[in-house]
């Protein structure tokens, strides 16, 4: 197991380096001149040249790439924003908690509520509780979450005046963003949880376990739950990465200065260090979530564990 984890972590670092390469190249290819966007259209050629030299973007692609990879992975230095002149890490540290609070709360809400709804629907299969839940889930995965957010603002802020619509400051500011970020996940997890439960209820190994006279609570705990959990974990992990990666849009709707919005500031201002740092964060976040998910699989599924130890020694 230890070797499995170590192997996965090394692989994760390689993926991150490759992702850094991709993101650097993408930002290199973005049309437009950062120096011009910083100094305005009236700046003279000489001034622009000096600025370009200052930013280091007059160097060849390969040199810039090497510099970026060296600073990011050896010195852990994400650079300074070209526009604001502040270290990107500081800005990100200030914004990160907001994105994570929303992401993680939405995850917990969608995992718990979604799974409970899914199991509830599976137990009541074919009855009205089941169909109501599933229709609701279907509608929720079809409605764009950022539009639902606008509608919630309209209802709860503009009309009823219960909650603030924009910005940050109090706990109340986070309620709408968390709910809106979680609803899609609730629906996905409810659907996933229902089909996982139904599949397990019908599975042959459950019949076998009962047939050999196993006690019912052991059948549920040892045979059904681990198997039903696998797809649920997939759904939860997918939901978390979706929520956090979707934060540029959701944070725009609620004007929350988080990582997603920071990234858009970078994109619109041609501020490559900001964009690169944000995307690296998203990549790191995604790979860590996938790693944890795979570890859960390996923990739950003896087949994966066995397969791995057989192959590696």
């Amino acid at each position, binding site marked *: 197991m230890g070797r499995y984890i170590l192997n996965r972590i090394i*692989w994760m670092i390689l*993926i*991150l380096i*490759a*992702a850094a390469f*991709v*993101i650097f190249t*993408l*930002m290199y*290819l*973005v*049309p437009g001149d950062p120096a011009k966007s910083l100094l305005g259209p009236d700046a003279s050629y000489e001034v622009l040249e000096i600025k370009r030299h200052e930013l280091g973007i007059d160097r060849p692609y390969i040199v810039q790439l090497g510099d970026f990879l060296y600073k990011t992975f050896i010195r852990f230095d994400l650079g300074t924003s070209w526009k604001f002149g502040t270290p990107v890490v500081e800005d990100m540290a200030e914004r990160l908690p907001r994105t994570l609070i929303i992401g993680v709360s939405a995850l917990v809400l969608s995992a718990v509520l979604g799974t409970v709804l899914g199991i509830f629907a599976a137990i009541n299969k074919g009855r009205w509780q089941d169909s109501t839940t599933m229709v609701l889930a*279907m*509608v929720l*995965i*079809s*409605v*764009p979450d*950022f*539009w*639902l957010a*606008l*509608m919630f*603002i*309209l209802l709860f802020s*503009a009309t009823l005046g219960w909650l603030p619509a924009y910005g940050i400051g109090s706990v109340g500011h986070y309620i709408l963003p968390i709910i809106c970020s979680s609803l899609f996940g609730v629906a996905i997890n409810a659907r996933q949880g229902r*089909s996982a439960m139904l599949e397990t209820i019908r599975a042959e190994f459950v019949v076998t376990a009962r047939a050999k006279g196993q006690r019912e609570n052991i059948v549920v705990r040892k045979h059904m739950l681990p198997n039903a959990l696998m797809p649920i974990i997939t759904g939860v992990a997918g939901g978390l*990465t*979706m929520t*956090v*990666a*979707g934060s*540029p*849009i959701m944070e*725009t*709707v609620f004007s929350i200065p988080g990582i997603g919005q920071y*990234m*858009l500031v970078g*994109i*619109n201002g041609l501020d490559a260090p900001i*964009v690169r740092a944000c*995307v690296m964060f*998203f*990549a790191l976040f*995604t*790979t860590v979530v*996938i790693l944890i998910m795979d570890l859960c699989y390996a923990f739950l599924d003896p087949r994966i564990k066995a397969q791995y130890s057989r192959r590696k020694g």
Partner: protein
Amino acid sequence: MLNVKRENQLKSSLFGDFLERLMKTAAAKIGVVLLVFMVLVCFVGPLLSPYEKNGIDLTNMYAKPSADHLFGCDAMGRDILTRLLYGGQYSLILGLTTAVVSSLISILMGCIAGYFGGVTETLIMRFIDVWSALPGILLAIMVSAVMGAGFFATVFALTIGAIAGGVRMTRGQVLAERKKEYIEAAESINCSKLSIMFKHLLPNVVQPMIIIATMNIGATIMMAAGLSYIGLGIQPPTPEWGAMLADGRSYIRLYPHIITFPGIAIAITVLAVNLIGDGLRDALDPKLRD
């Protein structure tokens, strides 16, 4: 000649059987009806509309829904219904194109990886690992920033974001299929690798991809709207649904009708596609049927 004919017959009966099964589920029926309705309305409706998609009419700024303007007008007095219909054309074509292109690429890469194995498989799958370290929506945002605005740039951006999952799934499917007897039989009579891959393997792994592709249409329409909402992708004054939402968000308190209808249009279209996707899954995957 005879062989081709028989094959076609077989295919059409399989397809007929499949359609029959699809239409048996109530959800799929509703989905098909909704989708046909949206397609008809979006492609025929603009011909009947007395207004132009970008026809500015300052006397009707922010007009509430009325008999003249069924869904009201936006900040420039443009008829929202007409713009919605034109926007629907973009969204539907965009969703379909992206889903088809990304599934084709996914199937091809997945088949190659799964069937050839070895170094080829390792290379493709490691490539996909890197690819999926960046979530689809994020890749779409980045590529969209690089490519700039426009229809094809957006299709490209969304396609890039949608491929990774499909490759993984197709490969898994191929790995399960290639051990079966019919592949062994084809190999034993010296079929070329390519012909095994396309003639024998492909028809058997394509089904789950159809489901994913259908679901992708809905996801793409939502993502495209999200992109234009944050100012990337298709740009104003093109009547794209997400861009219309972005236009109206400043007037949310005073003129909520501007942002209400585009969202409903997105929701109905995506709902239709998702219902069909669910129906397809039930029809194609006998395991999940009751």
